[in-house]
């Protein structure tokens, strides 16, 4: 037998590895076609539309303008953007503050306990937003559980305004988005070799010092990455802010809904979408940069 015979198509092992080469695209093709046609194409078209003027006759595809973007800086939209940012930052800060106590508590539980506790902390993300928001209106509304209870106890005369404002949005969004700070932090915490803590202690470090000098620096990248994801989700949230923020506390996503479905101004709606997309992608890039720097 010659080397040529070995290299020929009859040699099984080599052809086994190679055979998928050409067929590989066949496996990937349906998903790629679907994502390009039903995902990238609409997104791309939306970006294109945002550079066209809106006319009473429809979108004027013959002209290219930047006016839709200039309008983002109008007072009303600037106020909405600021509100959205403020609410998002508050939720992220609260999530970060709560993440360590929760993750440290989780880490102390038995493996079984951890599974269940994680499931409970996941539940707000798994349960339908609309259902959860409905629940919050039952709790926070003027005739909701809290106001009824406080009034019955004689503590207040007029109902407290707990929803249809920024507070309502924060209360409603925090549980579902908290998870995205908690899970990476918990995973990072579990990933720390126990021996590191013991090593620090044999060298004279007390538990508080161990947390500050070992645990905190080793989990910080995960915390920051989670916080940024959390922030982008807060910025993009739609249904819960719409139901709990009401007309007084409109956020960016709801204004985008109004512009597109009530004003039917799609070019401007597209500009709003591009703005939101830019913020999100910017945050993701920041998260990856931070992750790379701290590793």
């Amino acid at each position, binding site marked *: 037998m010659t080397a040529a015979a070995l290299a020929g198509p009859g040699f099984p092992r080599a052809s086994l590895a190679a055979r998928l*080469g050409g067929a590989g695209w066949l496996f990937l093709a349906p998903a790629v076609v679907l994502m390009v046609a039903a995902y990238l194409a609409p997104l791309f078209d939306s970006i294109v539309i945002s550079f066209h003027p809106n006319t009473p006759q429809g979108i004027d595809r013959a002209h290219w303008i930047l006016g839709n973007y200039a309008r983002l800086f109008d007072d009303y939209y600037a106020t909405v953007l600021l509100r959205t940012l403020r609410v998002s930052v508050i939720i992220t800060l609260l999530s970060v503050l709560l993440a360590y106590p929760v993750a440290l508590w989780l880490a102390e539980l038995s493996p079984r306990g951890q599974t269940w506790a994680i499931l409970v902390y996941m539940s707000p993300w798994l349960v339908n937003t609309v259902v959860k928001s409905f629940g919050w209106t039952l709790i926070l509304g003027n005739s909701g559980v809290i106001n009824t209870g406080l009034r019955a106890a004689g503590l207040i005369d007029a109902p407290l305004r707990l929803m249809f404002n920024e507070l309502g949005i924060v209360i409603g969004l925090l549980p579902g988005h908290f998870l995205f700070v908690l899970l990476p932090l918990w995973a990072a915490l579990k990933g720390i070799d126990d021996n590191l803590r013991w090593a620090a202690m044999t060298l004279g470090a007390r538990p508080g010092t161990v947390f500050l000098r070992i645990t905190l620096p080793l989990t910080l990248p995960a915390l920051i990455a989670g916080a940024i994801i959390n922030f982008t989700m807060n910025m993009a949230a739609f249904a819960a802010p719409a139901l709990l923020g009401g007309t007084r506390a409109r956020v960016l996503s709801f204004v985008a809904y109004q512009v597109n479905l009530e004003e039917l101004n*799609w070019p401007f709606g597209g500009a709003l979408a591009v703005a939101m997309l830019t913020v999100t992608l910017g945050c993701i890039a920041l998260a990856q940069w931070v992750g790379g720097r701290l590793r």
Partner: protein
Amino acid sequence: MKRALTALNVLMIVYILAPIVLVVWMSFTPTMLFRIPITQFSLRWYYEVFSYSAYVDAALLSLRLGLLAALVAVAVGFCAAYGLVRWKPPGSAVLMGLFTAPLVVPAVVFGIAMLQFINRIGLYGSFTALLLAHVVLVMPFAVRTLQASIQEHGPELEWAAMSLGARRWRAVMLVTVPLCLRGMIAAFLFCFLISFSEITVTLFMTGPAHQTLPVRIFNYVSDRIDPTMAAVSSMVVLLTVVIALALNRLGALSELKK
């Protein structure tokens, strides 16, 4: 210290579960008004839900949409995940980015894009457009879950099957697919749950003809509060709990933690 941690976590869990528990609780009140504490217990609102065609139609639409979207996503997603794992094409990171982009890109952005796009191509208000959007939205969950599942089993078993004379597609069908059955079930349930809960994109796309259950609840919550809604919501919660427990059992949720 440990006590304080436990106390804080108990508070957190109460806070997290409060709206869900309250909805279920309320659904059993017999009166039109929500009153606390609840002294009577009634299934009245559950009966009313089923005589209310708006809810029944919406629920049926959501079920049909979720099942179909999950089916398509698992089929397409399995092929894609298989291609990614076994073939490792150049630029597979870009492809993975494409498949998981809906996790990252805000749903509102996709909703706006979809609204404009389906109008342009004349599919506004059609079930097909809605289905396509849902398949796209659940695709990340399908591809990720299935990728992990395929990775669990190396190519050696397929090689063994092929060395015994099976062609690749038979090796995949006879070896890989049965081995990945758990992953496929998990991916299917996951996709169904995500599709069944989807509100944002659907709300942007949906005409009056196709109001899914979440959209209908959304429209009602904005208008008025009605105990039948608590009953509908409770059934949604029950379905979610069942699926979540199944997913947990299948280990699909721990995949998410990574």
